[in-house]
């Protein structure tokens, strides 16, 4: 089984609440879940949708075909009716939409009337709709009632009961009325973890001992600030909303200089403002983690949609030369562990580390068995207390074999911590001489870079170990590419090569992935941008040229059927 449910309506109608609740019901029932959202940059009106796919087998992308459409507005019907699968059903409330549809695949459910009748308030119409979907699927309402209890726990027994009654009313109505429903979703074993990419980054920061997060709200990065602020009290993390992104990165650098793990997050436009701060981190060797959420640009672009067009920007931006690390997780799970690795490398090498993601990964919820806390790396690299007190002499930018100087916390001893955005000597004081300049560039750049490169993991190979066809991608396309490989591997020898650790570009020491590429008949680079920025990076780093490329830049993610068709078209041309 592999079902897709779409909830369509206007902004402000509660689409996300229905979607989140259903996704939680399915993950608690033990299903694999994947959700994705499509919304406009507005608080009310327009047309938005939330799509949930769930299955008894792993799912990690959205399909084009839908099985149940919950139409909260009239527009949803002409927009999505054609996406309906053969046995698909549309549920709607004719009283709310002020229209009746007579085709057999339409089921009129009085969301509002049932809410008033059973819950006592029309506000519970969405709870009725949620219950109705479960009824259509032949699922019991028990897990939903548990979730309602979690959501409304603080509002008291009456609210919980009213919502529960509304849910059951919707459920029972659908069971009785949906005579053509042929869905069957039996409960599976144990509940799965359900998490969105954006929360994974926030959780990863919390789990890495981040103590300071400063940012200016900007889609798709705001969720990180929301998550960390929510955990601030429990974990002792200060979240400061800065007046602009320039302040955000400089505050984080100040906090990091003062001795705590610090992070900032933004989207491309805000990152543009942070660029001088990035360079400041490079010069002062101040550890910092930057989450960079991509969305279609230039300028304001599509504020709420998705794209992967800031890779060149992240790679090359800033005046001057200094080492940086760039990660691009492909799943929420990778986002969690790579955020932890970002903190580890930032602290270890005293460099900026950028975690790139996009709106698609940010908003998509995935299910997992669970995250393993024991895999986290939380080494303390800073010099504090007694260790610092013992030093007879301290130089913040001391020249060392590795290029990494001891990183001390100001105020912990009489040793002073001095740094400068100007070129500086070992103590951190401003200099002008050529000799020191050369030594410092060697230290910051040439000594550290090879060590950093050794930390970078090679791309993941998934599928055939000696493939004729290799699809290559980075970041959020992991899931859809992997499912394409699963489908196509029935007929061809195909594999995916996915890069989540982008820069320094992974060496061939751990895994000779170039051999895989060189031996393939067809190599396709798949990216959500117009110019193939990763393909260009690959060529620059390895000289390799892809035989084909698939680029999407309309602000929407690749859906499974669409990408399959495009890959297949390339295979047929062979």
């Amino acid at each position, binding site marked *: 089984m592999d079902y897709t449910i779409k909830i369509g309506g206007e902004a402000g109608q509660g689409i996300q609440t229905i979607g989140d609740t259903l996704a939680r019901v399915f993950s608690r029932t033990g299903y694999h879940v994947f959700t994705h959202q499509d919304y406009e940059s507005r608080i009310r009106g327009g047309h938005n949708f939330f799509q949930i796919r769930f299955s008894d087998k792993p799912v990690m992308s959205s399909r084009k075909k839908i099985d149940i459409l919950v139409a909260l507005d009239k527009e949803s019907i002409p927009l999505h009716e054609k996406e309906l699968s053969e046995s698909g059903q549309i549920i709607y409330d004719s009283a709310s939409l002020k229209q009746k549809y007579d085709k057999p695949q339409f089921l009129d459910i009085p969301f509002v009337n049932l809410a008033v009748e059973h819950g006592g308030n029309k506000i519970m119409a969405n709870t009725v709709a949620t219950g109705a979907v479960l009824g259509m699927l032949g699922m019991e309402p028990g897990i939903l009632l548990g979730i309602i209890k979690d959501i409304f726990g603080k509002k008291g027994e009456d609210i919980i009961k009213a919502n529960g009654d509304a849910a059951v009313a919707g459920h029972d109505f659908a069971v009785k009325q949906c005579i053509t429903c042929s869905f069957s979703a039996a409960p599976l074993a144990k509940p799965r973890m359900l998490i969105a990419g954006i929360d994974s980054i926030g959780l990863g920061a*919390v789990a890495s001992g981040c*103590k300071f997060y400063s940012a200016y709200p900007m889609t798709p990065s705001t969720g990180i600030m929301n998550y960390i602020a929510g955990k601030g009290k429990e974990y002792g993390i200060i979240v400061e909303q800065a007046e602009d992104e320039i*302040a955000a990165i400089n505050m984080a650098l100040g906090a990091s200089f*003062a001795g705590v793990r610090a992070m900032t997050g933004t989207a491309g436009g805000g990152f543009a403002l942070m660029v001088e*701060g990035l360079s400041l981190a490079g010069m002062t060797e101040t550890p910092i983690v930057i989450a960079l959420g991509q969305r279609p640009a230039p300028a304001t672009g599509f504020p709420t949609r998705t794209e992967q067009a800031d890779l060149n920007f992240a790679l090359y931006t800033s005046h001057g030369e200094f080492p940086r690390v760039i990660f691009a997780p492909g799943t929420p799970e990778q986002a969690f562990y790579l955020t932890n690795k970002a903190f580890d490398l930032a602290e270890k090498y005293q460099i900026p580390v950028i975690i790139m993601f996009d709106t698609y990964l940010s908003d998509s919820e995935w299910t997992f068995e669970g995250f393993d806390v024991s895999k986290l790396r939380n080494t303390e690299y800073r010099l504090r207390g007694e260790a610092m007190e013992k030093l007879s002499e301290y130089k913040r930018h001391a020249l060392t074999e590795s290029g990494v100087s001891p990183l001390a916390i*100001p105020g912990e001893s009489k040793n002073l911590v001095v740094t400068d955005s100007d070129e500086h000597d070992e103590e951190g004081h401003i200099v002008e001489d050529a000799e020191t300049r050369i030594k410092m560039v060697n230290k910051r750049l040439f000594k550290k870079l090879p060590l950093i490169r050794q930390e970078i993991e090679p791309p993941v190979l998934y599928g055939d170990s000696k493939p004729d066809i290799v699809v290559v991608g980075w970041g959020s396309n992991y899931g859809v590419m992997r499912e394409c490989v699963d489908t196509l591997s029935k007929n061809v020898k195909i594999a995916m090569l996915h890069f989540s650790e982008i820069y320094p570009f992974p060496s061939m020491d751990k895994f000779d992935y170039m051999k895989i590429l060189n031996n393939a008949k067809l190599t396709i680079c798949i990216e959500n941008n117009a110019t193939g920025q990763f393909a260009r990076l690959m060529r620059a780093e390895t000289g390799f040229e892809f035989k084909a490329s698939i680029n999407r830049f309309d602000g929407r993610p690749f859906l499974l059927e669409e990408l399959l068709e495009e890959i297949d078209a390339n295979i047929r041309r062979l």
Partner: protein
Amino acid sequence: MPTLDDYKGQTPTWCPGCGNFGILKTFKDTVVELGIEPHQLTVVSGIGQAGKFPHYIKCNTFNGLHGRTLPVATGIRLANHDMLVIAVAGDGDCYGEGGNHLNHAIRRNINVKLFVHDNQIYGLTKGQASPTSMEGMKTKNQPFGVFSEQLNPMALAVALDCSFVARGFAGDMEHLKGLMKEAINHKGFSLVDILQPCVTFNKINTYEWYRQRVYHIEPEYNPENRTEAFKRALEWGDRIPVGIIYRNSRQMLEERIPIIMDKPLVKQLPDLSKLETTLKEFY
């Protein structure tokens, strides 16, 4: 107790006669007299002649980017509010490039001390108009004279209910020292705008020009009256008041964050024992 020797830094590269020398000497006297050890203090500076200031003393230093002193200083204070954090900036640095940060640092009322070396001109880039240059001042870049109205940092700060607002004069070091001490001892964001003659590029606002105009605010003046303070802040021209213009007892940011009530953030080592419980929230 710290001595002046403890604060001996590099030899300044400022022009002979620069108003900055007066500020530097006063600063050292102030921190020594207050018994502040160099490691208990962090000076954050930006770019400009004032930006070099921390290299000419000895203490923890973050010499960052042009205009960005206040965000860095804010980050340091939030991470460690046991640390005395002094931001040193010039008029171009703080009122021009970093103007937005000043507004918001005042609003936050973070306990940072901001000492502005206000010479009403750009020194490091060789003589262009600054936000505090007087209307009509001719420079190479403003051959018809400055068209924009002179920024009034005192009035701006009072309007934003800044916790401590004072003006000093680099040529009156004993008085300036008093202001610096008051600012350091004040709980809350403190702005001290220091009139500082630029002997090389500003031929209008010279030592002599300032000396003829500055006067000490009379002792009976009540700096806690905001309306009176605003009137005083507007004075400029034949008579320029120096002294504490405005002061209030707004709660400072550091006192309002529950997370750091007991101890500074930097002293709180991460406690990750609750992670497993946090992970359960995703089921």
